[in-house]
């Protein structure tokens, strides 16, 4: 078992390198190249004026393709890491912040790549992959003891519900990360005339599509969490901080969907709600650090 856990960690290390390199490539692709121009003007009086200007130009398309390839490498390595850890533990790695974050890294990469493939938008990677790298840095910063595989504590000994509830939470967060990235790029695209960014309409639609994945997944997280709470604690809703934080997140995205479908909000306002929504995701994700309550075991 120890060998599997070690191998799983090495795969995670490989995925870390691949995702980091991918983030750099995507950034190079999305930000573009800065071209400095210098113009010298000679006047009839013999004076020479020199003007300098900087202009952004489209990035090397190869960097984008390279980013995609590296992101796929990262997803595959991380997938293998998770598979090995699953084999070692006998359950999906979802029981502490090391495992949860590792799975989040995997699903965030995968969900992003599926959206990239569906919409043909590589620039999105310049936002999603740095978030992935941030998550990787966080995982590396966690106590080494969390990398060991331990038997599940009694509260988590419900594998079907743990797998469904926690996996869906990760899927929802991953989809919301993609929606966040689309919102960020939208706000950049409409404020700066960066011609090679995707059209704002496409980014707006992409953000919405990502939420249509995340919102039902989050609804299922709340429902399955309630079912699990009922089995474990005898009540399907405890007003536990982590529960209510997830409810808060769901309500924010509920506001997003209702303002969009019933009030016709598009563009800037919708993008801002998506930013608030992702802030709620981060708040819920790291809530274990400052929440007490029934989910405290999930912390570090």
């Amino acid at each position, binding site marked *: 078992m120890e060998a599997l856990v070690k191998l799983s960690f090495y795969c995670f290390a490989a995925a870390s390198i691949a995702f980091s390199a991918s983030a750099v490539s995507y950034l190079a692709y999305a930000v573009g190249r800065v071209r400095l121009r210098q113009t010298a003007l000679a006047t009839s009086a013999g004076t020479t004026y020199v003007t300098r200007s900087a202009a952004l130009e489209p990035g090397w398309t190869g960097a984008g393709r390279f980013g995609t390839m590296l992101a796929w490498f990262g997803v595959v390595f991380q997938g293998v890491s998770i598979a090995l850890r699953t084999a070692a533990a006998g359950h999906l790695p979802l029981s502490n912040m090391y495992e949860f974050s590792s799975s989040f890294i995997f699903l965030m990469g995968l969900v992003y790549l599926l959206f990239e493939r569906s919409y043909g938008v590589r620039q999105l990677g310049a936002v999603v992959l740095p978030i992935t790298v941030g998550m990787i840095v966080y995982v590396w910063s966690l106590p080494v003891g969390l990398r060991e595989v331990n038997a599940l504590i009694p509260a988590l000994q419900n594998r079907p519900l743990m797998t469904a509830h926690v996996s869906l939470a990760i899927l929802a967060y991953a989809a919301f990360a993609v929606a966040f990235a689309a919102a960020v790029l939208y706000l950049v695209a409409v404020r700066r005339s960066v011609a090679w960014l995707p059209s704002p309409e496409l980014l707006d639609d992409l953000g919405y599509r990502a939420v249509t994945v995340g919102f039902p997944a989050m609804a299922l997280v709340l429902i399955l969490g309630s079912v699990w709470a009922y089995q474990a604690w*005898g009540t399907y809703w405890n007003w536990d*901080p982590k529960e209510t934080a997830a409810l808060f997140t769901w309500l924010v995205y509920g506001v997003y969907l209702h303002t969009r479908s019933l*009030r016709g909000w598009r563009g800037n306002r919708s993008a801002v709600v998506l930013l608030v929504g992702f802030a709620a995701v981060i708040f819920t994700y790291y809530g274990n650090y400052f929440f007490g309550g029934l989910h405290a075991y999930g912390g570090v």
Partner: protein
Amino acid sequence: MAQVSTPTAPARRARRSLPDLVVDRLWRFFCSVRIAIWEIAILALLVLIGTLRGSSVPQTVADAVPALAPLVERWYAWDVFHSLPFMVMLGLLSVAIAIGGMINRAPGIWQAIAHPTVATTHGFLRNAEASATLAAPAPPDVLADRMTDALRAAHYRVLTEERNGEIHLYADRFRFAKLGTFPFHLALILILVGGIVGARWGFRETEFIVPEGSVRGLGYGTGLSVRLDNFSDTYQENGQPRGFRSDLTILEDGEEVKRGVATVNRPLTFGDTVFYQSGFGQAVVLRITDARGQVLWDDAAPLDFVSSVNPDAPAAVIELPPAKIKLHVIAPDSNRGNAPEQDPLGLASGTMYFLPRPLGPDGPIGDAPGVVGRVGEVSEVAGLNVEFLRERRFTSLQVGRNPGIPIFVVASLMLVGGLAVTFYFPHRRVRGIVAAAPGGGSAATIVPLARRDWSAQRAFDRLSGEIEARLGLPLSRRRSPAEGPASATSRG
């Protein structure tokens, strides 16, 4: 020429009765999307405030800005989720969901499903963000038939209407998905109903403590009592708990009706009453008699309190009404790492500290001194003989009966089903006109009803490609800037 006087708008308003006006205002209030969104936002804010209350955040705020300490204290004291503002917002939102989200929208949605407007205008087609046009040598009715066949092949419902020699087309797909909003919104109300039903007709005992070998009555009119036959807790090598298990016997009116095991995540069920493993602790078995030999207590007492002088020392309180005494029982310090000054009693293993206190204002004793008792020995405490028989374990169960659960399950299925239908089967709509071309033959123009909807426009592109392939006619596409005039999308 006879003049007909028509009442002016203010005159009409004046004729309306007060109840009419009130109902109308309330109806508008609950149908307002803007207000509903504000209600969700305020509810979200209250949820956030309640969530943070359960965290260390308010304390951090108070530490950083001492002036805010009184406010933070009030924040900690405010039980948001059981407060009036929260209940009011839940109530308002529920009514808004029922009226504005369902009842008010139902006719419009049904109209769009069953009787959509077919006719359109050339101006509408011109101003659409995207359009596809094709020409054919055939007359308009033949081209319209072929278009209809092509759209039906793409699983679209097609409605046509002839106007001034032109054939107007309306085609849509997934029209019944518009109904998905109803199960979703109804589910939100049903979840609240489930909670109310559970609270009104069910019960929940959060700390039902049963020591090993003892029987405790459940109450709540169930006639049930529970005996704990055995409790066991197991641990991993690193000290993490592996499992907690209570072997229980359930008695109904004193008769054994079920034996079973309750562990965390696997509760024991009898009928519709469920027993959940919640906690455990130490218990002490005592036999207490008075000076005449009358038995006042012969049972286990769970040490489910802690000593006021040492929070690491488990304690129990036994009330003895006949003697008007309550006996505090304090166990040795459970934290061996504590310094001696943290454990003023300094009790050794196998001993208990008995501290008698008066029960009620007319108790026979004052602050009598405590006595240290040893296991297997009898101690005299305030005129009582307290025999410390042995130590045992107790289990702490949560017991509940919740008739709202079936409602909650149905609501959950409706919620997820409604969302899935709404999001993954979007209502796609197309309008068009087939008209005679000036040079002979006919021309058809179709547009999607997809204002600023990139996915719908992509679906339209796919659809127009399918039509082109099926009809074998060249199709010209046009895409205008997204911010087209509002009139372009005011229909449909």
